[in-house]
């Protein structure tokens, strides 16, 4: 007797065989997916049909599914190896009947596919840090892994940005046959009386070298590092004239656009899944249960940790639901009290933020103006003055998250919302501190317009100063990450391990908090995007920085940290990382566009010294083009084109929105229909079993104990119902009922 239940069963065979129910098309389709498509089993299938003969629908179903299966590759069939082999042999047999030309084509396509697979596997084996990431995955699961693959992505991104700047800006300068003597130009345009620069001395102090290296000053001003070095209008190669200002501007626009495209491409997959059905919460219960276990975990302790965190997550989510229920039951008096409390706390938060921003502003203006002081006290104090903005920003970014996490406890939100809201506040704080820094620099540069001698170093070449500021921020960020790992996390681990006092045990090991780590990275990357315009070598420095940070963080994770109690899921991590990165990129575009289009470029240095603003290099280049090209570009920039393009885009958008609305309606209707059909079917099965009264009644008790001996799938319907209850009520209102 052929085993025709859908899945291999463990006990004795089927208990009830209801020949009528076996003809249900849905049951037949499940059977068909299990068995292979060989003629033998098809024959046996036909043999099993009941006395009432074949149903035509069943035949048609078989044909359609056979053709569907044929189109899929053999490897995609969910059968064991022996059956796949049989399937493949059968297909080869059928192919022999085809013409030789088609045969050759099939063989060639198979060969090409194999070649592509080999190339693909070769490329993926060349991926950076493959074994390290595999090790982390095995020890900690996919949540923390997403942070490290994010780091890898940033290394690649920064490397590409550096290559763009190198090829279009630095390489022509390096290959320049007539290099300009930079030193002579320093005094051009210098109308103010300045004291002889201490950096021009031949023999310098060892201390001053270190200060110079760390602040991008002195000798570094005259290297490829900073904007001020690229003071060339045109580079005359043997056959071609290379316009450096245009190249510089276009390279800047190019790397911003490239970053945007790459980030959007990378996040496209995640967005698509998120936008398809927006009613679902992003981290639904099904996602946690069915996709909850990381099958790649190999260590026992990590498995235990994963179990604990899953348990914690589930309990918190269930409590979330209960709290939401409770919140809906709040009285008006309660609500007023809570809203008042929230308003007060938010005002307090804004006050704290305003204080931080003001201190950043003061620190930046002080640091810029300290150059004018004649007496250099001490090299350490000098260094502190140079790094004052960085120090203030880092301290503010360290204190505010702690403050936010304390405040949020009093605001009485649901736990999931609390986490998200705190995170949003931290993101805002990080990005706003960069904005305040740039604003204070901008106000300084504005002062230069009125009084060029108030701050000679800034006013002569403000781009270089901004570049130096960004360089200092990057270096300091890296030093802080290194210092925190060595001087805070490592001693903490030693303390917890070797000290037996209760305080140490309560404090515990450092948690590897993914959000805070990602915000650090985001901060560094935003600085890099803004700073590359003023400091073309910054992307290379950032590449090296992220390269080192990978190993530092990996070591810290393995040796010092325990994973967070409430885990960050891999999918929402990717969404979060790329989302904040996109925000950082958009933020970075604003200062660059303002400085390119509005602020007057310095006359004494840089490629744009001949132009009023940096943007003017582009129209000047357009003027030099032939007439036809010029007309095209003028047309593209004219109002007619812009307005019509805008109108067409709006129409397309409205069409797509309407289409999506219509699809949604259809989906809802189909869902309702499906529920109704299911009810119909259950009702009919009940009636059928009733009509076949005696044999079914005898085996009815066995039906209700499914366990090991439960046979085919459709009886699970009947086992869910109490027959007496169904009989007592009238049949459900079905769509087929007239």
């Amino acid at each position, binding site marked *: 007797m052929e085993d025709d*239940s859908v*899945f*291999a*069963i*463990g006990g004795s065979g089927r208990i009830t065989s209801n020949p009528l129910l076996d003809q249900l098309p849905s049951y037949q389709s*499940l059977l068909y997916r299990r068995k292979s498509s060989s003629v033998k089993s098809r024959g046996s299938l036909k043999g099993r049909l009941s006395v009432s003969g074949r149903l035509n629908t069943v035949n048609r179903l078989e044909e359609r599914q056979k053709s569907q299966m044929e189109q899929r590759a*053999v*490897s*995609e069939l*969910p059968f*064991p*190896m022996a059956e796949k*082999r049989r399937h*493949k042999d059968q297909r080869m047999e059928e192919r022999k009947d085809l013409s030789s030309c088609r045969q050759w084509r099939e063989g060639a396509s*198979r060969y090409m596919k*194999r070649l592509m*697979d080999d190339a693909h*596997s070769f490329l993926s084996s060349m991926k950076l840090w493959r074994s390290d990431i*595999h090790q982390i995955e095995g020890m900690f699961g*996919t949540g923390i892994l997403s942070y490290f693959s994010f780091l890898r992505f940033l290394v690649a991104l920064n490397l590409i940005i550096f290559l763009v700047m190198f090829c279009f800006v630095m390489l022509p300068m390096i290959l320049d046959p007539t290099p300009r003597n930079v030193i002579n130009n320093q005094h051009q345009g210098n109308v103010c009386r300045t004291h002889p620069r201490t950096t021009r001395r031949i023999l310098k102090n060892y201390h001053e070298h270190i200060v110079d290296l760390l602040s991008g000053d002195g000798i570094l001003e005259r290297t490829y590092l900073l904007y001020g070095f690229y003071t060339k209008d045109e580079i005359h190669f043997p056959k071609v004239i290379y316009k450096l200002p245009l190249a510089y501007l276009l390279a800047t626009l190019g790397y911003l656009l490239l970053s945007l495209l790459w980030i959007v491409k990378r996040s496209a997959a*995640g967005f698509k*899944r*998120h936008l398809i*059905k927006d009613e*679902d919460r*992003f981290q*639904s*219960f*099904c*996602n946690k*249960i*069915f*996709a909850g*276990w990381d*099958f*790649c975990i*190999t*260590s*026992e302790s990590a*498995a235990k940790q994963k*179990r604990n965190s*899953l*348990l914690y997550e*589930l309990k918190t989510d*269930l409590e979330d*639901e209960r709290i939401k229920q409770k919140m809906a039951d709040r009285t008006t008096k309660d609500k007023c009290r809570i809203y008042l409390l929230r308003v007060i706390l938010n005002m307090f938060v804004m006050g704290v933020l305003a204080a931080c921003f003001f201190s950043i502003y003061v620190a930046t203006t002080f640091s810029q103006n300290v150059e004018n002081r004649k007496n250099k006290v001490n090299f350490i104090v000098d260094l502190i003055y140079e790094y004052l903005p960085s120090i203030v920003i880092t301290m503010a970014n360290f204190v505010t998250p702690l403050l936010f996490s304390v405040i949020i406890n009093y605001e009485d939100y649901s736990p999931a919302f609390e986490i998200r809201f705190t995170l949003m506040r931290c993101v805002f704080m990080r990005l706003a501190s960069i904005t305040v820094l740039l604003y204070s620099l901008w106000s300084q540069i504005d002062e230069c317009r009125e009084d060029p001698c108030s701050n000679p170093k800034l006013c002569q070449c403000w781009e270089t100063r901004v570049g130096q500021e960004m360089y200092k921020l990057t270096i300091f960020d890296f030093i802080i990450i290194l210092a925190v790992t060595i001087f805070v996390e490592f001693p903490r681990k030693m303390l917890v391990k070797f000290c037996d006092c209760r305080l140490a045990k309560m404090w515990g090991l450092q948690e590897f908090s993914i959000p805070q780590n990602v915000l650090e990275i985001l901060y560094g990357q935003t600085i890099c995007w803004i700073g590359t315009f003023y400091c073309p070598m910054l992307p290379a420095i950032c590449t090296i920085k992220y390269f080192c940070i990978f190993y530092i963080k990996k070591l810290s994770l393995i040796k010092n940290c325990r994973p967070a109690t409430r885990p960050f*899921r*891999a*999918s929402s991590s990717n969404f979060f990382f790329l989302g904040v990165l996109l925000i950082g990129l958009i933020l970075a575009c604003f200062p660059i566009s303002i400085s390119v289009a509005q602020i007057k470029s310095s006359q004494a240095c840089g490629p744009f010294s001949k132009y009023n603003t940096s943007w003017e290099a582009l129209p000047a280049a357009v003027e030099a083009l032939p007439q036809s090209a010029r007309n095209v570009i003028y047309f593209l920039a004219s109002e007619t084109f812009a307005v019509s393009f805008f109108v067409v885009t709006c129409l397309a958008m409205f069409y797509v929105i309407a289409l999506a609305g219509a699809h949604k309606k259809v989906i809802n209707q189909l869902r309702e229909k*499906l*529920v109704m059909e*299911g009810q119909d079917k*259950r009702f009919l099965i009940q009636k059928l079993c009733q009509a076949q009264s005696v044999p079914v009644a005898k085996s009815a008790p066995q039906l209700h104990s*499914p*366990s090991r001996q*439960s*046979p085919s*799938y459709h009886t*699970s319907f009947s086992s*869910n119902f109490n027959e007496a209850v169904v009989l007592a009520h009238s049949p459900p209102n079905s769509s087929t009922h007239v």
Partner: protein
Amino acid sequence: MGTTASQLAKDSLSEYQELTFLTKQEILLAHRRFTELLDRDERNHPNPRVPMEVILTLPELKSNPFKTRICQVFSTSEDKDGSLTFEDFLDLLSAFSDSATLEIKSHYAFRIFDFDDDGTLDYGDLEKLVNCLTGETEDTRLTSEEMRQLISNILDESDIDKDGTVNLSEFQHVISRSPDFVSSFKIVL
């Protein structure tokens, strides 16, 4: 067509490449790891079958709460004892590999989660599933009230025809919307 003692024949290698999602290196690595599990005398057997207890000593499976179910699902033995031949092992790795399609993964995930092998995920299956995920000991389980709430939430989200169970199509539908599944349902040697 099994494997000879220590070498994998070239034509069977290319056949396995065609029938599974694994690359050549992955198949060779799998062959090496599989032969390490065999005894000396078993290695000369044309088609050796490794018992479940030995398979479960692999580090990739040792800490997995679903290890017995995985072996049972991929086993082609007559006694349903979870023992695997080399080809079963390749099928296992293929379904869990990086390049396997979502459909294959969700199909096998459904079979793994279907503890009583009846073709649907009913209350008992889901309860066993949650207990596997959270741990088997008394203090790591959810209370029965929480379990009931959790399973009713799951069924709310996935049971489209409202029959109280999740069948294969509903499971595949909910998995296609789950963003974590592809990255977590992966075993790489």
